[in-house]
Structures are given as C-alpha cells and as structure tokens.
C-alpha cells in the first residue's frame, strides 16, 4: 500500500469539498441542527424529569454518538458516490491504484470528515448545552472506536451494494442508519423492545455502546464486557465488509461491470 496513493484519494475529496459549499455543509450542518434540536429538547425534559438522572448525557450524548456513527458510514459511501457520479471507476481501476488503497482512501476521508463533524458537535453541545464527554470517562474513546469501526464496515458494505447493483441503488444506502436506529437502542434501553427485536439488537455493535452509556450514567459498574462484545462484533463486520467488497469488485472485473459502470441498472 503506497501512502501517496492513499493521499491522492483523500486529496481528491479535499479538492471537491474546497470547491463546493454543498459538499462542505452536510458533515457539519445536519449534525449541528441535530445538536440544537436535541439540546433544547433535553433542556425542556430536564425541567419535568426526576432529578438525579443526567438527561444531557443520556439524550444529547446519545444523539452526538449516533450522528458520529452516521457520518462515519456516510463519509465512506459519499466518497464512493463521488466516483459513481463522475464515472471515474475506469480511470481509477485502470491505474496502479490497488483495491486496499482505494478503500483505505475512503476510510481516511471518512475519518477526516466525521472527526471534524465530531469536534463541531462537541463544541456546540458543550458550550451551548453543558454536555461534557468527560462524564463518560475514559470509556468515551472505546464508544467512539466501536461506532467508527461499525460505521466503516457498514459504509464499505453499502458501497459494495451500489457497485453490484448499479448507481440507482444509491437510494437503498441512505436509509440504512434509520433502519438500524430502532434496534440500536439509541434513546431507550433494549429491555423495552420485544424479544425478536432484542435478538436483532444483540447483533449490532451500537446497541452495546448505548446500553453501556446508560449503565455508566446510572453509576453502574464499567460495562467492559458489553463493550468488548461490541468491539469484537465491529471488527468481525469490518473483516466481513472487506471480503464482501473484494468479492464484489472481483465479480465486477469478471463481468465487465467496472469497464461499463455508467448504466442506470446492471444485472
């Protein structure tokens, strides 16, 4: 893997963002709108809720972490879509760029955009609504790492789907976080879910993060075991996503999909 080729992939996204307000805004604007909306809701609920429970940590913190996860996933898929929209696959894959370098470039791009979005969210949530990530202690870092790894895995899976099914399937990718959210227990404990939903939740790394977050805020023991399961699941999904993307790419090279990837739909 050559560093300059990874840098080329990130530089391309930087050039695109630098030249386009429409690309620059989403990583910041929507997450900040979310923080404002949930910040005021949290403030209101704080006036009617029983004292002693950290609503800011439970709700606003959860929104912040969930938005971070969504930005990670969309950071990968949006960077990939830029190549779909500009019909750039032939130029890239007929070059010395390798598949790990290409995917690595998508991951680094996502790291940069989601990281910048996270900093903006933390600033607004802290300064505007009194949120402190220190309330999670050192576990804030593993929370982020588990969500980052799963976001990358899901983003890579989503790109494989679009590579396989064609540009129009892009619309299957955008709702994925919304489909996962009810099972992830972002705002409520998994115990309120029916058994079949809890069974699905157990397969989702974010569910372990948000359960751990609530345990922490209720001053329970550090939920290391749950986080370890979440981390292991995330790494498993990451490995699976890499294999799925590589297999999809091999299929695309075998069938000629890469060479003619501009059709609206492909078989």
């Amino acid at each position, binding site marked *: 893997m050559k560093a300059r080729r990874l840098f080329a992939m990130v530089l391309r996204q930087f050039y695109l963002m630098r030249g386009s307000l429409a690309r620059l805004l989403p990583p910041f604007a929507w997450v900040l709108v979310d923080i404002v909306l949930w910040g005021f809701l949290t403030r209101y609920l704080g006036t009617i809720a029983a004292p002693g429970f950290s609503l800011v940590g439970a709700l606003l913190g959860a929104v912040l972490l969930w938005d971070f996860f969504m930005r990670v996933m969309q950071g990968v898929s949006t960077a990939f879509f830029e190549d779909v929209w500009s019909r750039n696959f032939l130029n890239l894959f007929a070059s010395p760029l390798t598949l790990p370098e290409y995917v690595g470039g998508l991951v680094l791009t996502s790291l940069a955009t989601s990281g910048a979005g996270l900093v903006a969210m933390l600033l607004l949530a802290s300064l505007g609504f009194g949120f402190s990530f220190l309330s999670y202690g050192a576990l804030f870092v593993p929370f982020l790492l588990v969500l980052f790894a799963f976001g990358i895995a899901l983003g890579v899976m989503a790109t494989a789907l679009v590579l396989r099914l064609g540009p129009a399937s892009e619309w299957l990718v955008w709702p994925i976080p919304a489909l996962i959210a009810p099972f992830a227990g972002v705002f409520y404990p998994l115990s309120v879910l029916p058994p079949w939903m809890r069974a699905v939740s157990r397969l989702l790394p974010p569910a372990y993060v948000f359960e751990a977050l609530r345990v922490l805020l209720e001053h329970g023991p550090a939920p290391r075991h749950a986080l370890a399961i979440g981390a292991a699941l995330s790494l498993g999904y990451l490995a699976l996503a890499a294999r799925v993307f590589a297999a999809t790419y091999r299929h695309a090279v075998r069938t*000629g999909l890469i060479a003619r990837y501009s059709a609206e739909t492909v078989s």
Partner: protein
Amino acid sequence: MDGVLTVSGLRKEFGGMAAVDGVSFAVRPGEIVGLLGPNGAGKTTTISMILGVLEPTAGTISGAPRERCNFAAAYAPLPGNLTVEENLRVFGLIYGASPLGAKVEELMARFDLLRFRDTKAGLLSSGEQSRLGLAKAMLNDPALLLLDEPTASLDPAAAREVRALIKEFAARGTAGVLWTSHNMHEVEEVCGRVLFMAHGKVLLEGDPRTLPAAHGKRDLEELFVTVAREPLSL
C-alpha cells in the same frame, strides 16, 4: 514476441458468446500499433482486458508493469468536478509522477492547458477534455500507452498536433503505443503496423501502407469496409 505488451490467446466470453476470440499480438518499444475494426469487433474489450478492468476468460497478457502503463479514451473522461490542475495532481500521485508539480506544469504546457488550469474539467470542450486525458496518460512516462480513439473529438489542427506528440513520444524508443481509430488516414500516418479485428478475431496484420494493395484494395478505408462487411472474402 518480447515487447512492452504481449497478448497471447486472449479470449473473453459474455454469456457463452465470444467477444474476443484467441487474439495474439505484441507491441514493441518505439512502435505505434493500430487496432482497427468495426464497432463491436472487440477492440475496447481487448483494451479493457489489457488495462486490467476486465478479466479474460482465457489467454495471457504480459509486458510493462501496471505502474508503467497508461491510457486515454473518449469514454473515460477525467472527473468533471475537479479542475484541470487538480485532476493532474490527483492522478499524478496515483501514477507516481515525480517531481509532481513540475510534471503537471510541463504537461499542461505541452497540451496547451495552462489557460484552463483552474477550469473544472466538465466545463472544457470535448477537444480540451481529450487533451486533458492525454496529459493524464503521460503523467508516468508510460512504457505502454493505450489510446482508444484519442483524436475523435479534436479539430483537424488539434488532431495533427496530438498525432505529432504521440509520434514524437514513440520515436524516443522507450515506449510502445496501441492506438484505435476509425480515421484511416490518421492510422496510415501514425501507425507502423495495424491489426484488423472483426468478430473478436484479428483477421489481418501488417503495414498500413502496403496492406491494402496486398489484398487488392485501393486504400486502407476500402480494406476496412471489406473487413467490416465481408471478412470471409479476404
């Protein structure tokens, strides 16, 4: 058949139908080889396999390493949402152009793109986009250059300049060029050897200046029409 490109027994099937059927040829350093044939003959499929974006069903491709190959094709424009300079910088990094800044400046000057430095590639005319594609194709001083109808969108003066640049590039003797075109006058002027393809096979190979007479045809265009319409008559 040592060269910057050696293709042997190349075959590609789609759904059991052969798009390319047992194609073998070589390109040597200093050579410009024309790959000719009607639409659907298998030229682009062959080039896609050489570029590594299409897996052959059978056969082998060897020669210059991937880092030393490059290509330009009318159907693969560079991203229209990046400027000319940004495109060349990004692809320069991918292809390992060094020193990057100087190489980008040199190529923008050579392909008359300096005044479009900050223009988005999507806003260029088709001729200017062709020149940008060719500049990209030169970023790594390739040992093998694949050009799929490189002058298709150029006016006669610009096409002549491009032909001169490619001929000069090949004349250095370090690189070979595989060139597809439907302009038979251009092929005669540029190519030292041509391969006529039809129905996925190479039917004829030879010097474009002597090949027509050898098959009782007036010129290369007449030979092309015969290959396209009545390949069995050859």
